[in-house]
């Protein structure tokens, strides 16, 4: 048997042997965790609006982000956030909390390599690809929007 065939057979066998994460449990946990974070954000928004009825929606949104991000960084620094994330998965990663955690955790981890080549260079180690993708897809959508608006 040649090596490629042997490896291909082996990989199929390994795939069948390897335990999978239960998708229903994962989805349910993500739903609970993601939902809780979003409800929390909504709560901050509602509280702000009740205190300052004249505040415009953009400012309210900015305050919600500031609070969620600060809280995430706080929880990351105290080693709590990764425990929540292990439970919540995408439910904690998709809201802005995941983005804040990815930057804060890198900053903490690489602080030991100094401020320039440590924190400075590696702070966006995990968040970088998210940013690049965000910008790239925004450009793509922008071009489509432009082309569509011509007609």
């Amino acid at each position, binding site marked *: 048997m040649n090596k490629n065939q*042997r490896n291909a057979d082996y*990989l199929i066998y390994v795939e069948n042997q*390897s335990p999978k*994460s239960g998708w229903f449990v994962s989805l349910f946990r993500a739903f609970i965790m993601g939902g809780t974070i979003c409800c929390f954000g909504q709560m901050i928004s509602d509280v702000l609006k009740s205190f300052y009825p004249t505040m415009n929606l953009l400012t309210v949104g900015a305050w919600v982000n500031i609070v969620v991000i600060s809280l995430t960084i706080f929880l990351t620094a105290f080693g709590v956030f990764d425990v929540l*994330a*292990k439970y919540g998965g995408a439910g904690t990663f998709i809201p802005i909390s995941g983005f804040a955690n990815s930057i*804060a955790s890198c900053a903490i*981890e690489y602080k030991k390599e100094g401020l320039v080549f440590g924190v400075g260079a590696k702070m966006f180690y*995990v968040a970088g690809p998210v940013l690049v993708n965000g910008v790239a897809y925004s450009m793509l959508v922008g071009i489509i929007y432009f082309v569509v608006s011509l007609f």
Partner: protein
Amino acid sequence: MKKQGKQTYVLSSGVSIVAAHTLVGTKEKHGPLANYFKDYFTDDTFGQPTFEKAEREMLLTTITEMLKKNKINIDDIDIYIGGDILNQLVTTNYVAEQLQIPFIGAYSACSSVTESIALASALIDGNFCGKILCSACSHFSTAERQYRFPLEFGNQRQAYSQWTVTGAGCMLLSKEDSACPKVTKICFGKVVDYGVLDLANMGAAMAPAAADTLHTFFIDTNTTPTDYDLIATGDLGKLGSDIFRDLLAKDGINLGNNYIDCGHMIFNEDEQCMQGGSGAGCSASVFSGYIYTKLKEKKFKKVLLLATGALMSTTTNQQGDSIPAISHLIMVEA
């Protein structure tokens, strides 16, 4: 020493493992092998500013404790052979600088412990050296940083992943003919690559290497699994050991209850560790803590240890190359 078959070497009179010592972290201490891990530490930073320094301190402490307990003078040791899983073997290299004796770095990732012992046995059996110090270690927090993500980054682990052991093990091998357990045969493994790409699935990547070495050893020595009291693989984890059993069964070798995997038995089964432990410190600590003790008590008479190492780097993995693996075997008799 003479060669037997393709890859196996029979030592002429056996090389004594006169002392062994291990130091592990809290998680390992709370595992099923707690009774065999006498020394442990609760602060995983070891009082150091970085985890890399902590790992060095852990290894140095393990070695100095062993020397102190057995009243051995460091200057009586001819060579130090050891390895770890960090880039450029930094942990072992820095510790070797502290010890100030001739040093050979041995890298085969998590198979470093058996590689070191096998090389040391050959050197001693060939009358080149009298005493050789061997070690291997790993630390969860340094391995996580080098191979995966920052510690506080919130992500989920795959159900087939493993948890790097925080621990160090060291042994002193000597020519003197004592009642201590003896290394009697060694078998150097080949690098085997079955095309596994997933860094989280180390067990699947390393199982073929271990199966290859063990199969060759059985052919070389004309023995079967029942001839041994214990056959231990290094850190295949639960999934990896199941695959290992299957691979050998295909070749007509059926492993019985005398087969264990150090990675599978070091931790309690929970959501964090998934398939069990991994890392160079895994087989090193289980060997010098559990297996060595049992050998000394004569509970085990003939033991095969096959530490298993995955030889990729994060760079080769990101470039799409699969994970090559190796497994070196040592046979120890009480």
